[in-house]
């Protein structure tokens, strides 16, 4: 039908739709939430069902310092993003770097905890159900922190090379959604593993 007359060409009201980055990231977070829920359910279901030791109450210590570092990194990344939104690249790079350092401290603390558990307490993923669920849930979270840190490092390198400008504010913000999500999940993991499970 090549005889179709032309369609209307103007609109009365402006046509604004949400940004694809935010919608995409929220969708990813929804999928990630479903993955984490399954691991959390498995953890809760297997609490107290281990047939052999070591048990959580014997070996786990509250990772207060690591948690404080990770949760404060949410504040620093927020400060970084709002600085970039206002075009203050210097302040952005400082806050962004702080976020990176806090994330690295968290990962280092996790590594220290795992070293302690594996080599001093003899708990591995195949020791008992506690080991299985503990390493998989905490490991899944640590994996997400690692992915986040890789992204942060790439952005850090780009910043140092002077490629990051005010117009990248939205991208930084979309990434910060992911980082906030990873921090939020840590609150759940902390509650489940170190409070309920201990």
């Amino acid at each position, binding site marked *: 039908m090549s005889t*179709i007359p032309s*369609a209307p060409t103007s609109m009365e009201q402006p046509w604004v739709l949400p940004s694809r980055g935010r919608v995409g990231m929220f969708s990813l977070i929804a999928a990630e939430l479903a993955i984490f829920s399954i691991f959390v359910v498995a953890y809760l279901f297997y609490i107290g069902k281990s047939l052999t030791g070591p048990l959580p109450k014997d070996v786990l210590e509250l990772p207060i310092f690591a948690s404080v570092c990770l949760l404060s990194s949410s504040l620093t990344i927020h400060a970084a993003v709002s600085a970039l939104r206002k075009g203050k690249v210097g302040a952005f790079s400082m806050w962004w770097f702080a976020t990176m350092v806090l994330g690295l401290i968290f990962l280092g603390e996790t590594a220290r905890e795992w070293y302690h558990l594996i080599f001093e307490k003899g708990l591995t993923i195949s020791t008992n159900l506690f080991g299985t669920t503990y390493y998989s849930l905490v490991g899944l979270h640590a994996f997400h922190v690692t992915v986040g840190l890789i992204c942060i490092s790439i952005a850090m390198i780009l910043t140092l090379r002077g490629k990051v400008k005010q117009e990248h504010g939205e991208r930084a913000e979309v990434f910060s959604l992911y980082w906030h999500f990873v921090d939020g999940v840590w609150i759940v993991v902390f509650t489940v593993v170190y409070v309920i499970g201990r």
Partner: protein
Amino acid sequence: MASETIALAAAHDVPQPIGTILHDWVTTVDHKKLGILYILYALIFLVIGGIEATIMRIQLIIPHNDFVSPQVFNRMFTMHGTTMIFFVAMPILFGFANYLIPLMIGARDMAFPRLNAWSFWLTAFGGMLLYFSFIGGNGLYGAGTAPDVGWFAYAPLTATAFSIGHSTDFWTLGLLVSGFGSIGTAINILATIVCLRCPGMTLGKMPLLVWLNLVMAAMVLLAISPLTAAQMMLSLDRFLGAHFFDTLAGGSAVMWMHFFWIFGHPEVYVLVIPAFAFASEIIPVFSRKPIFGYPVMVAATICIGFVGFSVWAHHMFTVGMNSYANSFFTITTMAIGVPTGIKIFNWIGTMWGGKIVFKTPMLFCIAFLFQFLIAGLTGIMLSAAPFDWQLGNSYFVVAHFHYVIVGGILFTLFGAFYYWFPKMSGRMYNETLGKLHFWLFLIGFHLTFDFMHVPGLLGMPRRIYTYEPGRGWDIWNLICTIGVFFQIAGTAVFVGNLLWSYFKGKAAGNDPWDAWTLEWSTSSPPVEYNFARIPIVKSRRPLWDIKHPEDPDWKYE
């Protein structure tokens, strides 16, 4: 917007060397090319999965047959189920969604074109990984080739002690990889629909296909992810000696069932909602009436999306749950029949008083209506826990879900193929061959799957590789297998028709069906940028408004 294209399009008519064309397809990020890649890839796996089904039916044609060994039979039903769900149904529906959604919402591409390509290739390599098991499944242990644990792979069959070699590893990794692809596509579909609609297309003016795919994508996010998590756990069990599903160490085999079916049942709706979407586009156009009850259709779909997540354990009545769980899942399963029934009434309402054109796409959709109704009715029967205790894991269940997947989903898919083939290829298919395909497949389908209910009622369990004569199952199995050959003949006509029409078919023109949605306003096949000018819409049927300026829809909506 009509048929104007920018002069650049002419450059495509110059024949290019095969290497360039191939490079073009492999590196493409164009939603239409990726859609076609998805569809072609799924069609190849459809043939492979069909061959596996045929091998099973030949084995069961008479009692005590020894066409294949029990081991091979186990591999066939595992690979058939896995292939058909993950590497035929999902990719083919994603392919249509990819191709049609940007065209229908007046966008130039998906929201994340490179994510789109990434998702497709993950799905493709996931399928190859699964099929590599035929070669690599032996591994160092020298045992097992293709996976043989059934498509839902219950523990402890998948434990390293019972599944020696690497067959189950290929199964779990193949699904893990393609699962990431599915999540990527779902994110893309959601972001595209939410963020890229053309001016004027509010949520209430989107074509129903777009609405239904929106719900489908949301369900994929929440349904595939649990499967991904469960596959991670299974991989940890198999590779690192974890104990998630290891009953000897206190693990729970039933937990795998829950995790699998939390994915498994919503998956049925993930597959059937796009099928509903095709029917919701085809039936109005061939009834020459707008869809009846648009808002109710949307509401019913969303309702299915929600309730669909609370029915999974009806797959587990025979496992033994407490009476509260049994009652809950019986009630929710029966309840989900209500929104589905509303949809059937709406399609009938659309046809009622319409000027129905019995072209091939419409024939497939009408057959779908009847067959999906019957599939739903046997579903209601099986939702009653006591009835399920009698018939769970029997051929009655096999007949029921094939009625859904073949009679419901595959029939509308065939309809969708014929309906959008002119748009995708620019050529008209052969109507006579299309009708021949329809009738052959209809006869074959009913021979196979109508009569498959009977041996189930007579107590024939699924997944047995042979059976004793004289139990009253012989004649029904014979009829089922005969039906398969009609289905093969129908599918051969279908493939032949597509190939012949692609090269020799009449030019289709932009709008062969006198349809109403935006994809019919572009050229066939559409140019890379889809629309020379982004359209502006004022109603649910923008092309109707353009063709009938004296009586546009937006005056009444």
